[in-house]
C-alpha cells in the first residue's frame, strides 16, 4: 500500500467513522488481499477450490507446503462464520491434511487457527493453516504448565456457564469454594446433560488394529496407519 499523507489519513478515518457496519464490511472486502485471492484477482498457488472455500499455499510458509484454507466470504474471525461453513471448513481441513501427508510424504500436520491479533492472526480475513510437520522442526510447541486445581475449577466454572448459556442449557455450575478435609476437590455439579436428542449412532466400525511401525521410510508412500502407528 502506498504511504498516505496526514490529511489523507484523517479524511479516511472520518470516512470510516461515518460508515454503517455494512459499508464498513464492503470497504474491508475491497481492501482485503484474501478476498482478491478468493476471486482470482490476485495470483496464488491454488490447491483446492469449491463454492465456499479456496485453499492456497502460504507465501510466508512456516514450512514447505504450508496450506491456507480461506473462506470465500469475508469473515475476520471464526465466531462470525455460520455453523454450516465451519463444519465444511473442518472437513476440508481434514481432507487437505490428508493430501499434504500423502503428497509431501510428511509424518504429521499442525492445523492452526488464530482468532485475533493476540493469538497471532496477521490478516483481517479468517483462515485455517495446515502446516506440514517434520521431526525437530521446532514449530508450534504448546507448553504445559502447572496450574493449581482450584484455579482450573474456577476458570472452568466461568467458561462452562457462558457455554451453557450460549447452548441454551439451564444449569449453573458452581464450584465448591470450601474444600472439606479428605474430600477430593471436585466441582459439585455433575456432568452436563446431553443437549442433542439424536439417538446414538449404533453401529460403528470395529477398531482396526494399528500396526506398530516405528519409522516411515521416506521413499514409500505414507499411509495413515503408519502415521497413527508412530505412537508408542
Amino acid at each position, binding site marked *: 500500500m502506498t504511504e498516505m499523507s496526514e490529511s489523507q489519513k484523517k479524511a479516511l478515518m472520518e470516512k470510516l467513522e461515518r460508515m454503517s457496519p455494512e459499508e464498513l464490511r464492503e470497504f474491508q472486502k475491497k481492501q482485503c488481499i484474501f478476498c482478491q485471492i478468493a476471486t482470482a484477482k490476485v495470483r496464488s498457488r491454488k490447491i483446492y477450490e469449491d463454492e465456499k472455500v479456496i485453499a492456497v499455499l502460504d507465501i510466508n510458509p512456516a514450512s514447505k507446503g504450508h496450506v491456507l484454507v480461506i473462506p470465500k466470504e469475508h469473515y475476520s474471525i471464526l465466531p462470525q462464520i455460520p455453523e454450516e461453513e465451519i*463444519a465444511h471448513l473442518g472437513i476440508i481441513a481434514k481432507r487437505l491434511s*490428508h493430501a499434504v501427508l500423502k503428497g509431501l510424504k510428511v509424518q504429521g500436520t499442525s492445523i492452526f487457527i488464530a*482468532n485475533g491479533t493476540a493469538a497471532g492472526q496477521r490478516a483481517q480475513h479468517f483462515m485455517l493453516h495446515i502446516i506440514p510437520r517434520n521431526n525437530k522442526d521446532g514449530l508450534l510447541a504448546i507448553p504445559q504448565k502447572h496450574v493449581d486445581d482450584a484455579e*482450573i475449577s474456577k476458570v472452568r466454572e466461568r467458561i462452562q456457564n457462558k457455554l451453557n448459556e*450460549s447452548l441454551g442449557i439451564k444449569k449453573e455450575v458452581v464450584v465448591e469454594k470450601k474444600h472439606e478435609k479428605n474430600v477430593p476437590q471436585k466441582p459439585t455439579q455433575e*456432568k452436563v446433560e446431553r443437549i*442433542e436428542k439424536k439417538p446414538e449412532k449404533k453401529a460403528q466400525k470395529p477398531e482396526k488394529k494399528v500396526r506398530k511401525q516405528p519409522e516411515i521410510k521416506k521413499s514409500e508412500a505414507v499411509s495413515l496407519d503408519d502415521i497413527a502407528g508412530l505412537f508408542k
Partner: protein
Amino acid sequence: MNNCEFCSIVQGEFDSETIYADDKVIALMHLKPAAPGHVLLFTKEHHSIIEQVPDFVIGHAFVIANKISSAIFESLGVHGTNIIIENGTVAGQMIPHFSMHILPRNEDDGLKLDWQPKSVTDDDSDIAQFQIKEQAESVHPDLFEHEKKEEAHEIKKEQHNPLPRQLRRIP
C-alpha cells in the same frame, strides 16, 4: 481402545473437568494448560489422527470448538483464541486419540505459537503445490457429494452391525 487415556475419560474412569459432552465429542479443562482456560476437545470414538475421523464428526467437532472458543472470549475477556490440532507425533501429538486444543490468548501472555517465515524457492513451492494438489484431487474426487455419501454410509453401517454400542464395549 484399551489403555487410551482419552477413552478412559470417555468411559468415566477418571474424574475430569468436563465442560461439555454429547454423543460425538467431549470437552474438558486441560490439566496441564498452556494458559488458564485451555480446553481440550476430543472425539468419543477412538481415532488416532484427523484423517481417520468421519466427516460428520469432524464438522461437529469444529462447530463445538468454535462455541467453546466464543465462550472463552466472552467469559474470560481475552483478546484472542487459538484452535490447534496436533496431528501425528511429529506435530507434538502425545496421545494417539484425535483432539483439538482451544487456547485463550492475550497480547503479552508469552506463548510462542507463531513462526518465522521459511524461505522456500519458487521451484520448491511449485513442486509442493503440484504434489498436494494431485493428492487433493485423487483422494477426494467427489467433494461436493460428501454429505450424501455420509448418510448412505451411516445407514449401511447400522444395518451391518445391529449390536448396541454398550454391549460391544464389554471386553
